[in-house]
């Protein structure tokens, strides 16, 4: 297994703030790694260090074996970067944006024009290609930004929160684009606040908090470790204790009871939860349940599990 991206003990301080405090991560070639974490976890700083935009205070990082500090030129020849903002020119058309980048990649006028047409066609942006980008939707701009980072198809691609703030349809489109690139052998390191995004795209997930990795593993392993959340809504407050004791048999923590919402919830780790069995037991206990369901764990759940530290993630975790 060849590592395309390696980071060891990366530290980066901004004044007294530790944006990175000893981040380790390894991305095998040809895989997708998702760096998952809330705002301020150090995700963007990590990408900036790996893309040679920021120099780390300590630790080392390498892309395809090239050290990001000692051989930044070689690193830049190996990477594409799509940042958090769509770094495309609003005052140019989509086609012009790609042509300029092609010329900067030394494809020549003709070569750049041909490559722009090809990319616009392939990623379904041809219809809007000759309109100024400022008239494009947010999702399309972000997609153009993504395409702009692969004008020369770099072997390693860094995507910093590629779908933050996008509607579900645009998000799906971005995911399709990323999958297309991965199918062609690109190694992708992406950051995200969405567990679902990591789940859909990544072979490996690195959960970061406070500038370091707090957990690493496949999405399945991570989900198994986090568990899923079972929720029961009852008709009458008097049924809450009985419902809680039913859920308690699947979890070692005591279920949370929300008296105002007439709701009992519990995080179940390990085995899948047999919903019919839950319903049967509630019935047997004489509980009238209005709703019984399982819910995907949120990033909050991830942090609760991994760090024992409940925290807000801006309410955007999917």
């Amino acid at each position, binding site marked *: 297994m060849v590592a395309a991206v390696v980071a060891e003990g990366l530290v980066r301080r901004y004044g007294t703030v530790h944006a990175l405090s000893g981040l380790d991560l390894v991305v095998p070639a040809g895989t997708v790694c998702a760096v998952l974490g809330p705002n301020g976890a150090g995700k963007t700083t990590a990408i900036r260090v790996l893309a040679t935009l920021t120099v780390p205070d300590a630790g080392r990082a390498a892309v395809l074996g090239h050290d990001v500090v000692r051989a930044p030129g070689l690193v830049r020849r190996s990477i594409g970067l799509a940042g958090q903002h769509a*770094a495309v020119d609003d005052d140019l058309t989509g086609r012009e944006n790609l042509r300029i980048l092609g*010329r900067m990649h*030394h494809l020549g006028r003709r070569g750049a024009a041909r490559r722009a047409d090809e990319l616009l066609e392939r990623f379904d942006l041809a219809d809007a290609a000759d309109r100024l980008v400022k008239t494009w939707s947010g999702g399309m701009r972000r997609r153009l930004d993504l395409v702009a980072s692969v004008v020369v198809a770099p*072997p390693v691609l860094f995507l910093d929160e590629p779908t933050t703030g996008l509607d579900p349809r645009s998000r799906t489109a971005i995911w399709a684009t990323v999958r297309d690139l991965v199918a062609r052998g*690109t190694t992708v390191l992406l950051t995200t606040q969405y567990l679902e995004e990591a789940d859909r795209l990544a072979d490996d997930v690195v959960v970061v908090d406070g500038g370091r990795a707090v957990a690493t593993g496949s999405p399945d392993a991570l989900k198994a470790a986090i568990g899923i959340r079972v929720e029961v809504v009852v008709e009458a407050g008097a049924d809450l204790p009985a419902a809680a004791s039913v859920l308690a048999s699947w979890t070692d923590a005591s279920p949370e009871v929300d008296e105002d919402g007439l709701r009992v919830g519990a995080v179940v780790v390990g085995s899948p939860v047999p919903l019919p069995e839950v319903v049967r037991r509630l019935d047997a206990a004489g509980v009238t349940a209005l709703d019984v369901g399982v819910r995907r764990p949120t990033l909050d759940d991830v942090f609760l599990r991994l760090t024992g530290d409940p925290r807000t993630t801006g309410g955007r975790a999917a």
Partner: protein
Amino acid sequence: MSAPTAPAIAARPRPWTDGSAAAARVLLKLRHDPAGIAITLASPVVLVLVFGYVFGSAIALPGAGDYREFLVPGLFATIAFNVVPAMITMARDSGRGVVDRFRSMPITRVAVPFGQAAANAAYGLLCLLLMAACAVVVGWRIRTGLGPALGALGLLAAFQFAATWIGMYLGLVIGREETAAQLSVLVFPVGMLSNVFVPTAGMPAWLRTIADWNPLSALTAAVRELCGNPLAPTNGAWPLEHPVLATLLWTALLLVVFVPLATVRYARPR
């Protein structure tokens, strides 16, 4: 590793290619913004009208010179000193991640600001020529000859190139388009603190010293001299006694200071 159709990644640096692509980017944007061009061109015309006819009707020059003929070279200089467009453009690129994108690419990093400065200079030269045409309409004349007039144009273009570097550096430092736009109002007083609109002789001594040593004053005086337009009293200040030389020195100084500052700021990792 990459798809068979994908072009290869550039193997060796080609600063000229990178710079000309950066220049093409600036010029392409201008082409899409006719309203912006119109405003850039309209503002000196408005200045000529406001100062030439409104203030000019009440301002009497020492000696017998015509105020509008005195004013026009100063307006040329003001336009050449306009650091605002380069500042706002660079602040926007910096704030929106365009600078980061370029910096993550295998390009000659310093070639990008050079390309942008060249494009700005080309555009600025065009603006100066159009403004000269407008000035002729309101009565400004070149009273020397083609050679000195071309010299004046060269001085203005060189100074404008230097001013672009100041603007780019400020834009990189500011890093946000909104802030840059707010700060741009501060540029106007720099123009007032000079001999552009009125002779400096009547100012209080301390203010007069500042105004006489303002690079804008030297440039203005140089253009007046080269075009044979009415001159303001020099008050014995060296830059105004030798305006052409002073302008060349100012231009060289600004370039020596701001080209390295801007390119280093552009290229270095943060």
